[in-house]
């Protein structure tokens, strides 16, 4: 239990039932956080996660909340309620789904849902939290984007575009808060072994372990880095992919 004294005390996780978020919560519980507010869409899944965290650290105060992640007014209300309890040291916005690209191309309703839950929804949460954090002048806001947001690719550009929106939005927040004690972190995980990617594993994809990804995220947030690739090797891979000339990139089946 290293540096318990300066470890974050009050942590809010939006999309707490995501595999990455759950493992971040375990790390923070282990490091000595005192309050954890877990927010998700499914009450049943949240209950299982809270049960697990209580065994890991009985002294941890856990608050579970559910809400509508697509309605701006509901998001505002949820964030107001959470921040009324106390000013968070860390907010992690982690929710998302991995939509089927070809279904998104065929059905605009599915496409719109995917853009909403992966793009609009996280940035609305971010904006709502930032207002409170700026008012209290403290805390770190971390938003989970994706390596998929770095360059549009035919295999997942709907998801990629939503995550690209998140990236630009966070960039703007970082610019706005430059020099402020409030930190904003963009996390870009590579393909990670979670329930969201179960079908990729089926296809033989090589996935990073969720424990390793969560460790990189928790460390990156603690260091207050503006961008955290998890695992770190994706920084190099995506730098190459971003800079590939179009005539090479267009021949790639990715």
């Amino acid at each position, binding site marked *: 239990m290293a540096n318990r004294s300066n470890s974050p005390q009050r942590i809010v996780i939006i999309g707490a039932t995501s595999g990455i978020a759950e493992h971040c919560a375990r790390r923070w519980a282990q490091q000595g956080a005192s309050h954890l507010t877990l927010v998700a869409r499914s009450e049943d899944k949240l209950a299982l996660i809270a049960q697990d965290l209580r*065994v890991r650290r009985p002294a941890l105060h856990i608050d579970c909340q559910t809400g509508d992640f697509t309605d701006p007014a509901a998001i505002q209300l949820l964030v107001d309620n959470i921040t009324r309890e106390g000013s968070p040291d860390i907010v992690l916005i982690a929710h998302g789904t991995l939509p089927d690209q070809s279904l998104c191309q065929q059905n605009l309703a599915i496409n719109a849902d995917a853009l909403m839950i992966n793009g609009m929804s996280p940035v609305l949460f971010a904006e709502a939290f930032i207002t409170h954090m700026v008012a209290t002048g403290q805390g770190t806001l971390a938003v989970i984007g994706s390596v998929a947001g770095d360059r549009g690719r035919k295999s997942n550009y709907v998801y990629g575009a939503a995550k690209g929106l998140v990236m630009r939005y966070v960039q703007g927040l970082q610019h706005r808060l430059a020099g402020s004690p409030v930190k904003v972190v963009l996390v870009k995980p590579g393909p990670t072994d979670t329930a969201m990617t179960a079908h990729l*594993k089926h296809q033989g994809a090589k996935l990073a372990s969720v424990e390793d990804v969560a460790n990189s995220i928790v460390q990156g947030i603690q260091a207050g880095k503006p961008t955290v690739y998890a695992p770190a090797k994706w920084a190099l891979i995506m730098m190459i992919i971003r800079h590939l000339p179009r005539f090479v990139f267009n021949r790639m089946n990715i």
Partner: protein
Amino acid sequence: MVAVTSWGRLSRDTHQVTGISGRAQAAAQIHNHQPGICYGNGRSYGDICLNAGGHLWQTRALNRFIHFNEETGRLRCEAGVLLRDIQRALVPRGWMLPVTPGTQLITVGGAIANDVHGKNHHVLGSFGDHVLSFRLLKTDGTVLDCEPQSDLFKATIGGMGLTGIMLDADLQLRPVKGPWLTTDTVPYHSLDAFFDLADQSEHDWEHTVSWIDCLSGSQARGIFLRANHADATPAGAKIPGHKQLNMPITPPLSLVNRLSLRPFNALYYRLQARKAGAGIAHYEPFSYPLDALQNWNRMYGPRGFYQYQCVVPTAVAKPAIAALLDSIRHAGAGSFLAVLKTFGNRPAPGLLSFPMPGATLALDFPNQGDRTLKLFNTLDSIVRECGGRLYVAKDARMPAELFAAGYPNLPDFLKHRDPGISSAMSRRLFGS
């Protein structure tokens, strides 16, 4: 399809891998992916967790704790939880798993399916002795609660994962005052000396194990280690960090080979013999020394390695172990990780549990194809003749008849098999 290996890295066959994401989802997720077998953390050495060309159900996402009673030490957790995670969460609160094997990087489900044992068998038996109950999902979708008096419980302890998919289990932990052990290191110079030490230590020491230099034949030299849980934190004791080294690549040839083995063993013996006498150790480096070196199995090169672990009955233990060591020396083979220990005189909790009263010898051999398999046939004949058995958690090649001879409860066990579950090992040993 995904290439999957087990710890011995002897095969890289492709499997249709399905991740089980939660207890509530498990039945639906495996419904269209049968027959298959559960794959936990992949630390068993052979084919017990493999199903070449078929379905594997990955259980690592079943890694949540459910409940812990700080007064009684009773833990309920999902079957994919690693023993390491239990220990790291609960040792600081004064509770420890009573029985763990030489690695804690295994799942609770795997520990039960192999009914693993540790260095304290003569005191606390095997892992299954501390399982209070579990829930088993049958491949037809029914979920059964199993308690120790039931036949299905006994079939599932050491049941190779063939009786159902374990969802969660209730485990009895044991109280400890802290993470420390008081240790005693004793070099020995003959098998007689080993057996004397084992006899003398049984009463006063909870953990006993020995490393043996198997190149020295029946005139064996080795290092006998014994330990007890310390009552207090010893002065100056510092909890080790969780630093891990990694074997980043697989070398083109086994690093354990004829040239390296003799100096390896001589050096290891000298280093350990220098530590002779009393000491203190944290439970992690003492009990799981290899866990600090990630991917250590890669050092055996691209062809992988076999582990051969047998147990021979007490009455013939001395001559049988001597004969095994002599055969290994005559074959010009040898093993770096050679472990010799005795099991206590206790009834086993499972129908197919490995431990029996006697001595167990575990050896690693780089895979050299027919040469290695021929040596195993010789070792098999010694084990068969003296009424011993081989350990399925380590096995990738034992003949079906040796298994049947070593495990007389096999016909009873087969009545409890789930027809939707099949593994490479089950087909090799029982034909289905």
